[in-house]
């Protein structure tokens, strides 16, 4: 194992790309402002200097083109890691992701594949309003032929991103930007804690993988299972600490493929389940989780599965904290599910 260094999530992501690029000359990094500027969140800082402009370069503002070109590169054997600057800008590229990247393998009977990793900051809590805060993961999990990965710590971000880049299928890698610089428990009025105080900020400098499709049990417990990913893992951990409920907190880490075994084992033990995400409720990934838990654990359930999510509205400009499914809403759901 290589030396470890304290990293925030941005540094861990940067390190993952760096390590992969050093090992595989076919890896290319593209996107708006990723080269010269190093990315608006600085996730690709220094990579152009290190690997040159033919491997790390700026694109025009053309999301459809960015992804379409990446799919072509990938079909010919390269391994592009395009960045979509905010997940909110991914829609012009949806056609290329859904119609091309996700289906190339299937319709060519496995002859051609599109091993691209689309990195994109997503989620709210930064006062970004409707065009800088969305959580569109459910749109992608709905598409067969894509993997969807969402890390919640620097350590996981690096290991998962390396797995994603090395994976032979297209991966949507959503980075919860609210926790780039530190974990966030949903108490927006308290000072920000830096990652340095969190054990998962100790990140190996070198190569390691966290397998796609393996959840992590953040906290073992007996009373209720909480399923979360991204920022909401930390919100849930905060609520568990504040209320003292003996919850089992599972960080899904990858939505597709999903670690159903870990989920089932937990819910069979606790008999209660809460699903948490920032995205809107209707047809969100929580609906899928809730259905799966019901299908697999029906006889163990002692209460209906609860969903704690964003409201079914566009992400607001004002009233962000009334939208964000924070500690109060999660606390109420825990109460509800425990009272049944």
């Amino acid at each position, binding site marked *: 194992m290589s030396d470890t260094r304290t990293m925030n999530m941005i540094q861990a992501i940067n390190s993952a790309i760096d390590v992969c690029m050093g090992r595989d000359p076919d890896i290319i990094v593209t996107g708006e402002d990723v080269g010269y500027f190093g990315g608006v969140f600085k996730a690709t800082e220094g990579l152009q200097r290190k690997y040159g402009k033919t491997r790390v370069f700026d694109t025009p503002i053309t999301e459809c083109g960015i992804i379409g070109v990446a799919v072509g590169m990938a079909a010919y054997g390269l391994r592009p890691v395009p960045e979509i600057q905010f997940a909110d800008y991914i829609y012009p590229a949806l056609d290329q992701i859904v119609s091309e990247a996700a289906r190339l393998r299937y319709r060519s009977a496995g002859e051609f594949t599109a091993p691209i990793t689309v990195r994109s900051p997503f989620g709210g809590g930064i006062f970004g*309003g409707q065009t800088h805060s969305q959580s569109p993961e459910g749109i992608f999990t709905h598409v067969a032929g894509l993997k969807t990965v969402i890390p919640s710590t620097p350590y996981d971000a690096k290991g998962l991103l390396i797995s994603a880049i090395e994976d032979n299928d297209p991966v949507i890698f959503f980075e919860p930007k609210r926790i780039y610089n530190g974990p966030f428990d949903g108490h927006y009025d308290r000072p920000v804690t830096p990652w340095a105080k969190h054990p998962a900020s100790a990140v190996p400098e070198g190569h390691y993988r966290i397998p796609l499709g393996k959840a992590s049990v953040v906290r073992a417990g007996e009373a209720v299972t909480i399923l979360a990913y991204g920022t909401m893992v930390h919100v849930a951990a905060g609520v568990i600490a504040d209320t003292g409920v003996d919850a089992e907190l599972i960080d899904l880490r990858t939505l597709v493929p999903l670690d159903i075994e870990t989920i089932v084992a937990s819910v069979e033990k606790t008999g209660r389940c809460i699903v948490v995400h920032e995205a809107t409720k209707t047809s969100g990934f929580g609906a899928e989780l809730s259905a799966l838990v019901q299908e697999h654990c029906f006889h163990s359930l002692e209460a209906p599965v609860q969903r704690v999510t964003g409201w079914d509205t566009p992400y607001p400009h004002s009233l962000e904290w009334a939208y964000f499914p924070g500690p109060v809403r999660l606390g109420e759901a825990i109460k509800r599910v425990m009272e049944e």
Partner: protein
Amino acid sequence: MIANRERPGEPVRHVASKEELLEFYRQMLLIRRFEEKAGQLYGLGLIGGFCHLYIGQEAVAVGIQSALEVGKDSVITGYRDHGHMLAYGIDPKLIMAELTGRVAGISRGKGGSMHMFSVEHGFYGGHGIVGAQVSLGTGLAFAHKYKGDGGINVAYFGDGAANQGQVSESMNMAELWKLPIIFVIENNQYAMGTSVNRSSSEDQLFRRGESFRVPGIQVDGMDVLAVRGATNTAVEWVRAGKGPVLLELKTYRYRGHSMSDPAKYRSRDEVQAVREKSDPIEAAKRELDALGVGEDELKALDKEIRKIVAEAADFAEESPEPELSDLHTDVLVGQY
């Protein structure tokens, strides 16, 4: 072949009366002072999130919009929208209150800095998704033509936005259907940290419409009268039903892309040189001076504008936040 096609004439710099130029000066100064204040309120935490200032580009919105008819024509732009609204005579109080996300804001605090609208003025926003407004503008132009209301659309976008696929798609449709639209590229030379020549194979952006037969005109966007002159030419062409025109305004933004951008991708000297050599407000001031408008008159005007801006800031600070129930309204026609 191209030579045989009819084209709009060579634009002539607008000849403004003293009063007219003074009015342009007033509007440009209002935009600048308003933006400076918005920057301060941002620093104080009263404005949050994303906020893009128009400082340096004032001559573009003022020169173009002075040639339009409020209520008849329609305007649409991107997220750097405060200047266009002010140039259209929209109340600074309502704009500032939108920036602070208050209920008295022009979009009731629901849009914020990037997303503001005014039906009354035919101002169709304020759009955060780069390039999207250009196709919407094309649709607005279609509707003007369909309704036969004599109106035209002006769709503003940046040099960076010019590379979005839908911008090219829109130009093709607009020319094909001879729609009354002026495509306005505000070429401030940067899209965030990416300069034009690092993103555009043809950096003379006024040529962008050529293969669709959209005539393009390049304009000094730091000279309000040159802007107005070119707009006169474009408006005449478009109103006559001859189809779209593309204007490329060469301009410059003095501040970072947004409030969170330290603008390290360009040198201080570069910014300073533009400020010193081609500031649109200073240029208008020199011209006013030649027309006999004294320093005192301009000082009084500045004072008046500062007062308007200060009042807007107070209003924006004092107005309450939206009600919690507002979170769930305006999603669809009905409430749910």
